[in-house]
């Protein structure tokens, strides 16, 4: 295959280093591979565990690689050992190296072919390469960009996760653009009444955070905007953001609400889960950030009353969508998860019976800023005497969501306690599958609920029905303790619906967009990698968009992602030419 000449160039200054990792690919017969390569005149070294702190310096540091110009390392994935290799070889500008993952290789002879071809790739024409190419990213994309690299970071999604990432990055003096699709920051947490396990008021702790994020000099908040298109390459993304018209001049509006007073059109407030009417123009909720009005144009009849009422002349009925562009070095995806559509669970009667509501609707219902100003009144207008929570609504069900949605058990326990705070005499029943209160001090909340008299029944109800017209709902379930079906009368049924993967997705015009897993959540490329690494270098994941999470986990990940971004920025902006440490 190779000519004499080619052969010589292939072997000259070349080395193949193979690791017989005992745990990962110990079954592969590397001796055979080594044999084949040696026959071809290529220098091969076999080591027992390359990453071991005793072996590694012997193989990689000092004079160990003297005379080697091209090095192919057959070991594990770049996520496991890449940073170690890079740390050790960073200053060896005379050395070109690459890493081959041996995990999925079965045939030792075929492997020798792969290694040889990698050696060939390392031949002089591709001189500038440095850093490790991962299994599925092209080499060139990981080359440092140097001083021309953009410094900014794009965070998509302004929930608690996105805001925390933005704040942490801003604290490191890194400029951030935070794009939020809704009219206000806050995401799901802003809609909650209380948060478990401490039952502190959700918007009270979140509100200041949102104000901090919006007022930070390093953070630009783009509300009512969506990322339309992302192109470019890792380290230098080109982002197109579309600004949905709010029909209100954000620089003039003071959020006084005079416009919504005069607006004649009453529409359901999506923010309040449709439970409370609002006007076609107005602010989303009292602590919204930015606190500016917006017109829901699909309902607006263009009567112009708000234009007259607004003292500041902020109404712009003819506003058009705008598009802006920016360059960023990294992208953080914090789009959160979507609640599962409860109406898909036909047998629970969501949508047919007004007393059947979802957990998120319940949060709005008991919230002081919600539709009833915090009184617990069922949609039929009465004070509930019996409330049933049905857990795992959609979750852990192969037909709908095959995974556990993580927060709904503890959320329902919290909500059960809230019911008792409003109606101490009410009978509260939680129908569960497993009680998953595994977080710090969650078990205490569970015990508290049991002490307060919340009944826990291990059963998932079959169906919810109304026995007679105008009567109460009956929840039919099969409990373990009794034979046959049993019935519970309830005035309010709360479905603890799970969460689904985010569907909104910018159009990716990059070589490899971030992958989704089989449930549609963003995939984490590296199991042990602190849960924030996406399949594309320079793109990081935070919060509900890559799996159900509670707030604590989201906030923790947000900080972790900020650290990863900081490191990534250092890396892309480092000078690609020969130089010592910056």
């Amino acid at each position, binding site marked *: 295959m190779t000519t004499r000449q080619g052969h010589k160039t292939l072997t000259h200054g070349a080395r193949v280093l193979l690791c017989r990792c*005992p*745990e*990962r690919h*110990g079954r592969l017969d590397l001796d055979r591979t080594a044999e084949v390569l040696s026959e071809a005149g290529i220098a091969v070294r076999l080591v027992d565990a390359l*990453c071991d*702190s005793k072996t*590694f310096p012997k193989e990689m*540091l000092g004079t160990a690689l003297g005379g080697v110009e091209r090095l192919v390392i057959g070991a594990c994935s770049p996520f*496991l050992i890449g*940073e*170690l290799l890079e740390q050790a070889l960073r200053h060896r500008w005379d050395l070109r190296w690459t890493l081959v993952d041996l995990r999925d290789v079965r045939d030792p002879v075929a492997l020798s072919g792969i290694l040889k071809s990698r050696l060939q790739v390392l031949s002089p024409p591709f001189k500038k390469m440095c850093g490790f190419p991962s299994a599925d990213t092209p080499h060139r994309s990981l080359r440092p960009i140097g001083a021309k690299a953009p410094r900014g970071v794009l965070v998509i999604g302004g929930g608690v996760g996105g805001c925390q990432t933005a704040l*942490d990055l801003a*604290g*490191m003096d890194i400029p951030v653009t935070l794009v939020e699709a809704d009219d206000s920051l806050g995401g799901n947490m802003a809609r909650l009444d209380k*948060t478990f*396990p*401490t039952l502190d*008021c959700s918007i*009270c702790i979140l509100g200041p*955070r949102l*104000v901090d994020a919006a007022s930070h000099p390093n953070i630009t908040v783009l509300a009512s905007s969506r990322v339309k298109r992302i192109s470019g390459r890792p380290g230098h993304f080109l982002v197109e953001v579309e600004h949905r018209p709010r029909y209100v001049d954000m620089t003039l509006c*003071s*959020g*006084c609400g005079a416009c919504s007073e005069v607006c004649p059109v009453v529409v359901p407030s999506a923010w309040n889960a449709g439970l409370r009417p609002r006007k076609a123009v107005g602010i989303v909720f*009292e*602590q919204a950030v930015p*606190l500016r009005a917006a017109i829901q144009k699909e309902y607006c009849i263009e009567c112009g009353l708000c234009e007259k009422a607004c003292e500041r002349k902020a109404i712009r009925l003819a506003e058009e969508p705008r598009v802006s562009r920016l360059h960023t070095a990294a992208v953080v995806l914090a789009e959160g998860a979507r609640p599962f559509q409860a109406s898909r669970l036909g047998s629970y009667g969501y949508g047919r019976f007004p007393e059947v509501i979802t957990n998120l609707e319940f949060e709005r219902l008991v919230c*002081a800023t919600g539709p009833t*100003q915090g009184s617990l009144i069922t949609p039929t207008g009465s004070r509930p005497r019996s409330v049933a929570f049905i857990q795992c609504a959609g979750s852990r069900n192969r037909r709908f969501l*095959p*995974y*556990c949605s*993580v927060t709904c058990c503890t959320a329902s326990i919290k909500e059960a306690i809230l019911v008792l705070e409003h109606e101490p005499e009410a009978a509260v029943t939680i129908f569960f599958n*497993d009680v998953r209160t*595994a*977080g*710090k*001090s*969650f*078990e205490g909340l569970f015990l508290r609920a049991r002490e307060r008299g919340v009944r826990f029944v*291990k059963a998932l109800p079959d169906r919810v029905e109304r026995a007679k017209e105008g009567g109460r709902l009956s929840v039919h379930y099969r409990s373990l303790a009794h034979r046959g079906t049993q019935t519970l009368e309830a005035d309010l049924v709360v479905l603890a619906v799970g969460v689904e993967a985010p569907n909104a997705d910018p159009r990716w015009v990059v070589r490899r967009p971030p992958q989704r897993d089989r449930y549609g959540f963003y995939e*984490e490329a590296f*199991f*042990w990698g*602190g*849960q*924030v690494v996406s399949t594309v270098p320079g793109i990081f994941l935070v919060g509900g968009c890559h*799996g159900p999470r509670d*707030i*604590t*986990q989201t*906030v*923790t990940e*947000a*900080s*972790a992602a900020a*650290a990863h971004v*900081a*490191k990534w920025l*250092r890396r892309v902006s480092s000078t690609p030419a020969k130089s010592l440490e910056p």
Partner: protein
Amino acid sequence: MSGIGVYICHCGQNIAGVIDVQALRERVACRSEATVVKTNVFCCSEPGQKEIQEDIKEHGLERVLVAACSPRLHEVTFRRTIAQAGLNPYLLEMANIREQCSWVHRGPEALDKALDLILMGLARLVRLIPLQDRVVPVTRRALVIGGGVGGLSAALELADCGVPVVLVEKSVHLGGQVLRWNIPVPNADPLSCFVRPLITRAMLHPRIRVLDGSTLEDVQGTIGRFTASIQGAAGSSTEEVGAVVVATGFEPYNPDLSRYPFASLPQVMTSVQLEEIFRKEKPGHPATPSALEGVRTVAFLQCVGSRLDEEYPHCSRICCAITLKQALALRALGIEVQVFHRDIRLYDKNQEEELYGRARRLGVQFHRGTLKAVEPDSEGGLRICWHDEFLQSTLCVPTDRLICAVGLRPRSDAESLRRVLRLAVSQDGYLLEAHPKLHPLESAVEGVFLAGSCQGPKDVRETVAASVGAAAKAYQLLCKDHLLLDGMIAVIDRDRCTGCGTCAAECPYQAIALREDEKGTTKAHVETAACKGCGVCAGCCPTEAADHLGFPLEALKAMVDAALAEGAAQKILAFCCHWCAYAGADAAGVSRIPYPANVRIVRVPCSGRISARLVLHTFKKGASRVMVAGCHPPGDCHYISGNLRFESRVPRIRKLLSKKGYDPERFSYHWVSATEGPQFQHIVRRLAEALESEQKKTASSAPNAAAGDEGGR
């Protein structure tokens, strides 16, 4: 007083639903000389803040009082608000009419108390002086304690960002507990393949210095400038660092024989032992560990050492998933597996629910219920008797081996570290974070961060996330040369100071030195950068020469005067420390735990700020009861030992009171933590009951006019 603006917040219905804010506004307007008195639906919202800023410009306000929620929540917010409008941020006061009023009281009492709180606030506000933030240089190095995956990830993250790191590990090798776990997680790279490169990287990293076999003996200093003494095998050394990351990990539970008598049987082992008997797989060899030779059935018992109602009610979070991994490994060896559990708790969509399904399909049996007994049977195996929730009956099954899925516990040797760093623990014994939702990575001590399973049970994935996150927090501190600290510190009035040295001896931070001035007399001198602002010096100074800039004696006295201006005989005056007792009163509010409305709370930085004379002053003004509440000793005090300093003063206070003719029994002190709302209620109730019964007694002997006082307002 001109130039003061008062803003009363509705907080939606939170305040306005209980207190008639308009009436309150009018009463404040006619009882004080404030220039502007307004109400707002949400003062903290953007327009709310804007209104304040506009008024500052328009009316030339110089000081602002916001009557809203707890200053613990929004003091920082409103300080920034007024600072943006050009005022000195320290010229702000908040009257806590939500947590400590509308959430715990009802009716006219609530309105009266709200008015008092505002008048007390105004009394302090007019006596505040403009302060400047202190600029403190930052030592741009980090100390990481613990060399498990948590500590390694944090150290590497910081080092990669350019921060030099000192990594202190107690044992002789890095890696922590994960090196003991040999059973692989399905569908993932082996744990050792993740940890080994981390260890090597840390050892070779040019910016990481690993000190193994070492422990932290002592830490002095404060955020940005800590001095740590480290005791190693080769002797002790000191390190100057700007931030500390704690990653000391957990400890697996060791079954207690009095609770689990069967744990000593030879057929019973823990999940930790099971991991350890699994040798690293040798290629081509059968993988069955020799200790499991001939074993056909294995049972797992979940929640060993966790979820024990009285003893340790907490869930260990990860043992269910570990059992799943172990059960699958045993099943792959052809062993029958049964799992006796309470709930199966999995919280990671990536793997676990799917593994649960796979385990069930592969024939692992799951039984939900409660354990009745474990006894050896005649054939050398075990009999497990179990009350099954599904069958509603007790069944006994034979098994060859029983594996106790032991829980995770805080490290038993963490106490000395805790004391050195002044960290608090939560109820489950793990290190306490600054806020369970929004500050899970910070400890209450500024500049000290929590990484990994020392804060609560975490698997490796979560440990890495938390540690890298903690590194991000530390990096935010260490990426700058300077740090701004608040200006609320101590001052010494040279004229009054006699140079007695009491304050220098009592200051928990050694921030006071005695120096000779120009005239050769010895005077106390405060090191501004070292002072943390506890006010212990002001509390102990016999000549009242030491004072606190944010809580000056004059202001505290004025607050007491305002609180007791009317109906003093009916009132309980409570001095509560900002960090624990005041937060505990807030917690009572947040949980809507009502308590008698005749208590008036004066916030102080620390119980150590309270001097004997201040207590005396309060009685002189007619208070019927005076209480001082601080953090639980010894460890909870935010200022190391301020609470103990105060306690040591109590005998002197009692003596002074009886000398001046006041019943020392009317003075009391208590320890209340930030979560102890019910305890706070209990204390106030007891005081109020004592007061009531006393008054009934006096009322029966001599009719008292004070009763009409409350209503007369």
